[in-house]
């Protein structure tokens, strides 16, 4: 029985449960059935499923966090850095021992090009993780590597990523980040096409061979190793899987590989999204 039908039943009954309509109970039930089925045809019944649970934050903490991070993202995008900074301070005050919050604030500071503050956030996140969850230290190293890369310090970035990789060799993200840096770094001393291909292939295998961003990285690595045929093939596959969605610069890179040119990234920009 649909929700609509239940509501109809309730309004059609008197206080003692007898139908108020001047008709027999059987006719009344037939009437309800007919009315109910008509209503169902007009208003589609709500589909049964648990998808809502995925779309909504599960806890009060998550709801508050989502609201605050969305607010900060808006402020950063509007270049209202003073307001964003105030909000970030309040965010940290609210959750002083949450390493994930510190890493998010590090990203926010990097997006505002406040790299000293971003590195301080990373250091604090590492301190917390070292005490509470040393196995997760790689997460902080991986964020700091991105900040170093945005600062133009590719060597420090590589060192952090290699440390992160050392904590978990099966981590897709660490493999992928290392492959990207070694393939696209502007620093020739850091670039290593052959190594980049190894990390890129590992990331691709670990993620099942169907993640567009990982295939995009593998293509960049293959181009860095002068295997342009493979680079074109994998970039095309990445674009096909992404269907033009969330693969920034993929078309331009494909054009480069088709012309037997590798892709070089000057300095990656930190892009911020709400938690």
């Amino acid at each position, binding site marked *: 029985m649909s929700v609509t039908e239940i509501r109809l039943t309730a309004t059609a009954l*008197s206080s003692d449960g007898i139908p108020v309509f001047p008709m027999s109970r059987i006719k009344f039930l037939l009437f309800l059935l007919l009315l109910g089925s008509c209503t169902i045809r007009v208003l589609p019944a709500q589909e049964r499923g648990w998808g809502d649970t995925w779309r909504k934050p599960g806890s009060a903490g998550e709801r508050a966090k989502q609201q605050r991070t969305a607010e900060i993202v808006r402020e950063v995008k509007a270049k209202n850095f003073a307001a964003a900074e105030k909000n970030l301070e309040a965010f940290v005050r609210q*959750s002083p021992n949450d390493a994930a919050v510190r890493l998010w604030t590090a990203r926010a500071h990097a997006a505002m090009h406040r790299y000293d503050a971003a590195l301080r956030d990373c250091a604090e996140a590492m301190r917390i993780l070292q005490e509470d969850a040393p*196995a997760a230290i790689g997460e902080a190293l991986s964020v700091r590597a991105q900040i170093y890369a945005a600062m133009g310090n590719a060597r420090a970035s590589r060192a952090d990523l290699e440390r992160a990789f050392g904590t978990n060799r099966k981590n897709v*993200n660490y493999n992928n980040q290392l492959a990207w840096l070694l393939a696209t770094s502007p620093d020739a001393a850091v670039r290593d096409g052959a190594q980049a291909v190894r990390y890129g292939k590992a990331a691709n295998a670990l993620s099942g061979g169907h993640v567009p961003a990982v295939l995009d990285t593998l293509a960049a690595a293959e181009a860095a190793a002068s295997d342009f045929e493979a680079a074109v093939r994998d970039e095309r596959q990445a674009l096909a899987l992404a269907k033009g969605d969330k693969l920034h610069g993929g078309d331009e890179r494909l054009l480069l590989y088709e012309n037997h040119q590798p892709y070089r990234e000057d300095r990656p920009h930190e892009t911020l999204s709400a938690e």
Partner: protein
Amino acid sequence: MITPQSHPAARCFRRLLLGSILALLLGGAAYAAPPPLPEVPGYASVQLSRETINQLETTVYVNGHPERFAVDTGASNTVMNEHIALKDGVKPTGPDSPYGQYQYLKGQTLRIAEVNDMRAGSMDFGRGPISLYSKGTSDILLLEHAQESRHMAGLLGADILLHYKAIINVRTRQMFFPIKSHEHSKLGATVAAMGFTRVPLRVENGRGFTVPCTIGGKSGRLFVDTGAFTTFLDAALASELRMPTQRTKIVFGGFDGGRNEASVARVSDLKIGDFHLPAQKLFILGSNFSADISRIEETHVFGILGADLLAAEHGIIDLEDMSLYLK
């Protein structure tokens, strides 16, 4: 508006219904092997079984195909083996899906898919998203371990359990889902009168369920995890409280893919809410037993309340009332 639910006959029926539910939830505790689960009006019921590693399992019909799933309150999402899921006609989501296409979980990328039809016992879950797990590429060790020993297809996680307000009796291996709107049951009051202690459950970030606890005069929280076959406390806490521990040769696979040597300690003053646990030996694990639990804000997580203690203390996890009942 007068509704049929408030009619005296309906109230009487509700009392009978409540009595049946209580009889099912509580009565079965005395038996080692409960009889097949009868249907209870207003509730869908699912019979569970407890296997060798204290895991609660049931048969879930995925697009009509019967598969074995573990009921895991510690898993934030329902997860399924990718190979089995694709065989059962589960479709990976496309770029326009509201659930996204990929999920990043502890360094692993899991593919997201949608099940068209999912059922267990007399419960119809309908359709919804799940994460797909590929063997050997993930840290979901519980599933990997279970798959090695038996044909386990997935984990029935907190997303479905919370959405449908599951009531899980760990001891009697029964699970109920309210399927019709009715006044809130008096389960709590009745269970309390029968000697059960109510402990409030809280949903944490990532859909983890925790309960308050105290030990050695310190207050913290314990994760309620039916997927953990044993209860354990954090080694850092044990060291802080100067608990005498004994090393063991037992090695646990960690959530991070690492291996942790366990020790044991005799714990005599662990209280979960107002419920005093009898003195007993508990496992103590290194502080890196989870990479995520430290992310609970302002809360010290002391460890995991696993399926062993939940069963021994007659645990009923009531997500309708957000309570854990212990006796």
